């Protein structure tokens, strides 16, 4: 413990001495601050700021850092030292944040008497590299101290990890979200009051049930709930069918199926909706065809529940598939074989053995589908017709002609409570059963193949679905090559040329209008994806493998950012991170952060599902063999989690590229994202270039996914992934 604490102590001191405390112009890695680390009042380190530049409060808040150093030097008793470290580092963290909040850009907000004159009145800007280094060092000294007190079985890595994730979730989820939720309780004059909240909360526009007894539509909450349940169930079912086909049959076009299930997830928003309109809208191709040949009347049936439902099924089935494939693969063949030897037929084997073992996966897939549907606003916007849902209501409460952030916050609370409800139900359904199927016992059996009825069902649902997907996507590609999608279908390259032209005359110049946002998008997504995966899976590891106080609350809080509509998150990030101490608006960091913390729940869900299938004795074996928890994670858990990691990586990368609602408020001139560019074009009626851009994004993402699949590959548990062939003689098996 002492050694670990000393390392963090040294890092902290270096941070306070040699790194610029505040944000620096041009970025940390421009190193323009190096020369002025002591002398320049803008770029100086904390100690120098305090000593030479009148920022005396920095010295005060750094005293605890000195305190821990003294404790480490002079206290020999380990227990006592741990106690001191915990107390002093808590003081340190509190002081650093306190001074950040008290002294704003324009001077002190409270205790103004203390800060009279000079720098105190001048104010300060947001935390820079030095501040973050010191904060991290204090945090880890704190957790190391805790581990020294015997918490977390004395494992500094585990306690540190818990501390890190709790702090990150606290700062980047709770802190911003609380900013906006509090507005639900703000009266017209900014006073806090419950009356306003209850007025909004009990509005019949949210809870009305007129649809039950007359031809009106119901409240938005019921609409959202119904849609989310249908979407959750539908995507889980389709995802399961795809996963079963991919793992339990010898279907020939499996690979193609897999690609097909991936594509919708990598489709930029609005595109699916537009494609559906062109197919099934009142003047859509299918509608026209049916009208011309079968005299089916052209109607606007697509606009409303069915349109949104179909679009959401298309969009979210892949998520269910990604969650379920790992789970279905992970069900131990020997358990299926055991069932068969107990005279269970293939249907019984599936019904009573495989299916129950897939329960965590199914529950997680449903929960994700449910939440995605709740928070989705692209599809309802395009296809909603008069079927109003919470997410669009929230969006227009924020950006509409009559902005009402209180109403938006209230609606967000309604939405959140539904998500919380789904989450709790899921917990009840899963209960406390064990779902471990990857045990330390080498397992060499074969997966049971599906019984004919079930197989038939899987084919019957997936193949039409796959064909449908192919048609929708051919439409999209087609749309990018025609002059005016939906009207003038003469062939043209013009959209691609406008968006992605390259000039070779003097060197390579990317002259297309889309290049800027394209590069930004790719860079930011590639940074966000691995971070999301790491944070998500680390959280899953803590949730599945470690015991600590407040675990349930912790688990739900990680879901929070996912369950809140992106619009709300976007605005809350501006509210929270536009002013010191943490000032991030206008940077790429804020985009990365919003992606990491918005998408990490997928990593968490997938990780939990995959990890609850790993027998705990594997970790324990590693630990008793002398590996520490970090090595265990690296060498045992990570390799065995291949599919889950791949899924998390893929998904977070793709989500970062395709997400809209959160991003719209956070993009800045320097860091514009592809989706915001595409939406601008769609709003402007320039569908051609929007679709051409979307097509390029789809192709890009597809190549990245295939590359990832190639690099990470499959976990090697059994030599071959075998599926029983149903020949009459059971002898001749591969």
């Amino acid at each position: 413990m002492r050694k670990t604490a000393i390392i963090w102590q040294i890092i902290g001191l270096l941070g306070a001495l040699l790194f610029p405390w505040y944000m620096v112009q041009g970025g940390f890695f421009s190193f323009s601050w190096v020369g002025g680390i002591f002398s320049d009042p803008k770029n100086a380190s904390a100690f120098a700021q305090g000593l030479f530049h009148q920022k005396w409060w920095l010295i005060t808040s750094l005293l605890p850092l000195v305190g821990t150093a003294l404790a480490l030097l002079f206290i020999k008793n380990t227990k006592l030292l741990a106690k001191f470290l915990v107390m002093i580092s808590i003081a340190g963290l509190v002081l650093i944040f306190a001074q950040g909040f008290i002294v704003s850009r324009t001077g002190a907000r409270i205790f103004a008497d203390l800060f009279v004159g000079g720098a105190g009145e001048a104010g300060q800007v947001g935390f820079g590299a030095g501040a973050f280094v010191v904060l991290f060092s204090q945090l880890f000294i704190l957790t190391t101290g805790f581990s020294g007190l015997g918490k977390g079985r004395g494992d500094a890595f585990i306690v540190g990890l818990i501390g890190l994730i709790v702090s990150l979730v606290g700062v980047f989820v709770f802190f911003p979200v609380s900013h906006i939720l509090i507005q639900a309780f703000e009266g017209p004059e900014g006073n806090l009051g419950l009356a306003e909240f209850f007025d909004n909360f009990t509005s019949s526009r949210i809870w009305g049930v007129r649809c039950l007894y007359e031809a009106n539509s119901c409240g938005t909450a019921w609409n959202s709930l119904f849609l989310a349940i249908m979407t959750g169930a539908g995507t889980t079912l389709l995802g399961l069918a795809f996963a079963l086909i991919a793992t339990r049959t010898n279907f020939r076009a499996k690979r193609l199926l897999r690609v097909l299930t991936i594509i919708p997830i990598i489709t930029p928003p609005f595109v699916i909706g537009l494609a559906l309109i062109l197919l099934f809208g009142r003047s859509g191709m299918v509608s026209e065809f049916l009208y011309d040949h079968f005299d089916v009347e052209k109607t606007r049936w697509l606009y409303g529940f069915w349109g949104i439902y179909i679009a959401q099924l298309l969009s979210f089935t892949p998520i269910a598939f990604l969650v379920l494939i790992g789970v279905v693969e992970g069900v131990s063949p020997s358990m299926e074989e055991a069932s068969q030897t107990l005279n269970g037929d293939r249907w019984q084997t599936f019904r009573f053995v495989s299916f129950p073992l897939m329960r965590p996966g199914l529950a997680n897939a449903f929960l994700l589908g449910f939440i995605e549907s709740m928070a989705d606003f692209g599809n309802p916007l395009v296809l909603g017709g008069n079927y109003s849902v919470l997410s669009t209501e929230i969006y227009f409460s924020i950006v509409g002609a009559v902005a009402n952030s209180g109403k938006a916050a209230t609606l967000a609370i309604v939405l959140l409570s539904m998500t919380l409800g789904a989450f709790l139900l899921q917990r009840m359904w899963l209960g406390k059963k064990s779902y471990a199927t990857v045990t330390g016992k080498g397992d060499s059996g074969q997966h049971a193949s599906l019984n004919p009825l079930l197989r038939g069902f899987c084919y019957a649902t997936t193949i039409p679905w796959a064909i449908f997907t192919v048609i929708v996507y051919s439409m999209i590609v087609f749309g990018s090559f025609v002059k005016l999608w939906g009207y003038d279908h003469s062939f043209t390259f013009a959209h691609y040329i406008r968006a992605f032209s390259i000039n070779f005359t003097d060197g390579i110049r990317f002259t297309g209008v889309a290049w800027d946002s394209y590069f930004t998008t790719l860079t930011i997504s590639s940074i966000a994806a691995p971070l999301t995966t790491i944070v998500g899976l680390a959280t899953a590891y803590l949730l599945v493998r470690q015991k600590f106080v407040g675990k349930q609350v912790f688990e739900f809080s990680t879901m929070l950012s996912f369950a809140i509509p992106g619009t709300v998150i976007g605005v809350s990030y501006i509210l929270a991170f536009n002013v010191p101490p943490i000032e991030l608006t206008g940077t790429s960091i804020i985009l990365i952060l919003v992606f990491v913390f918005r998408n990490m729940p997928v990593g968490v869900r997938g990780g939990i599902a995959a990890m609850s299938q790993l027998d705990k004795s594997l970790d324990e074996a590693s630990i008793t063999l002398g590996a520490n928890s970090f090595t265990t994670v690296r060498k045992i858990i990570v390799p065995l989690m291949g599919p889950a990691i791949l899924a998390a990586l893929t998904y977070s990368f793709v989500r970062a590229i395709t997400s809209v609602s959160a991003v719209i408020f956070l993009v800045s001139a320097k860091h514009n994202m592809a989706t915001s560019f595409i939406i601008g074009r769609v709003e402007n009626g320039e569908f051609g270039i929007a679709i051409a851009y979307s097509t390029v994004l789809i192709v890009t993402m597809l190549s990245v996914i295939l590359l990832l699949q190639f690099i990470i590959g499959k976990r090697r548990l059994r030599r071959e992934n075998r599926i029983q062939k149903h020949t009459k003689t059971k002898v001749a098996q591969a």
Partner: protein
Amino acid sequence: MKTGLKLGLAFSGMLVAFPAMFFAAPALSDELNMVCSNEQDWCDLMVANFEAKTGINVAMVRKSTGETLAQVRAESSNPKIDIWWGGTGDPHLVAAQEGLTQASGVDTSELQDWAVNLSNISEGKTIGIHLGVLGVAYNTEVLAEKGLNPPACWMDLTKAEYKGEIQVANPNSSGTAYTELATIVQVFGEDEGFKILKDIGENINQYTKSGSAPSKAAGRGETTISIGFQHDMIKLAIAGFPLAIVTPCEGTGYEVGGVSIIAGAKNFDSAKKWVEYVISAEAQNHGPEVNVFNVPSNKNATIPKEAPPIASLKLIDYDFATYGSSETRERLLARWDAEVGDLN
């Protein structure tokens, strides 16, 4: 083991780009941070022209007016945007009322009356840049197929033959639709106006969220008739969609696009130069190059021939001061909810 290594490689590979932007503070000087709520091409072109003329570096991002207003509000304690250019005048007026923008003090003598009017009611905080006229569009092919007569007046839209054929946005979410609501109220008087709105409502197939959506739907034949701004319709028609545009015979309302400097802008001088530039005839004359067909606010600018011929149109005397105020707006919207009402 091997998998772990590969994973590590994959991760570190993706992390390579990270340091390059880590802890990069937002740039604050020597440039102009702009949010543009006009059409993307118009934004791009004006930025390029302005940079060439002044040498000021413009960092521009395009966002819709609602999004921009929400962002400006959220950022008000420490604004990152200097200037907001484009979009209907309504949200600009709201921003002015809420003190989110500041007066630029530019010379408005060359501007049309309606543009100066916008400046006056906002105490100079927002200045008119163009005029957009409210209109009705119909898809000629679908109309013919259905054997319907083209509408010519607001009153025509109440006819039973158009049942389920008209689309307009919801005034609660769309400024365009609010302009329509206020126009009808101003043309017919409030009580009569709401009766007409209710009758039109019988024919509406969908109240969309966004103001430009109905015309796009009309272009594709998803609806037959749409209500919206004419410059959106003209653009679609020029793109090739079979849209015909009508200015209602009883007279129609309009919006005036605005440009505003954000309160607390870090580059006020550059922002002011931008305002001066975009209200100049020289700048406004470039519009048609990128299919911008609204009426420019500078008297000396050439009005594009595709633009609605305002001289011959019956434009009402739109009362921005009254109908732009939040009390009137809230009252009218509450009445709209109660009497006309979205279906939910």
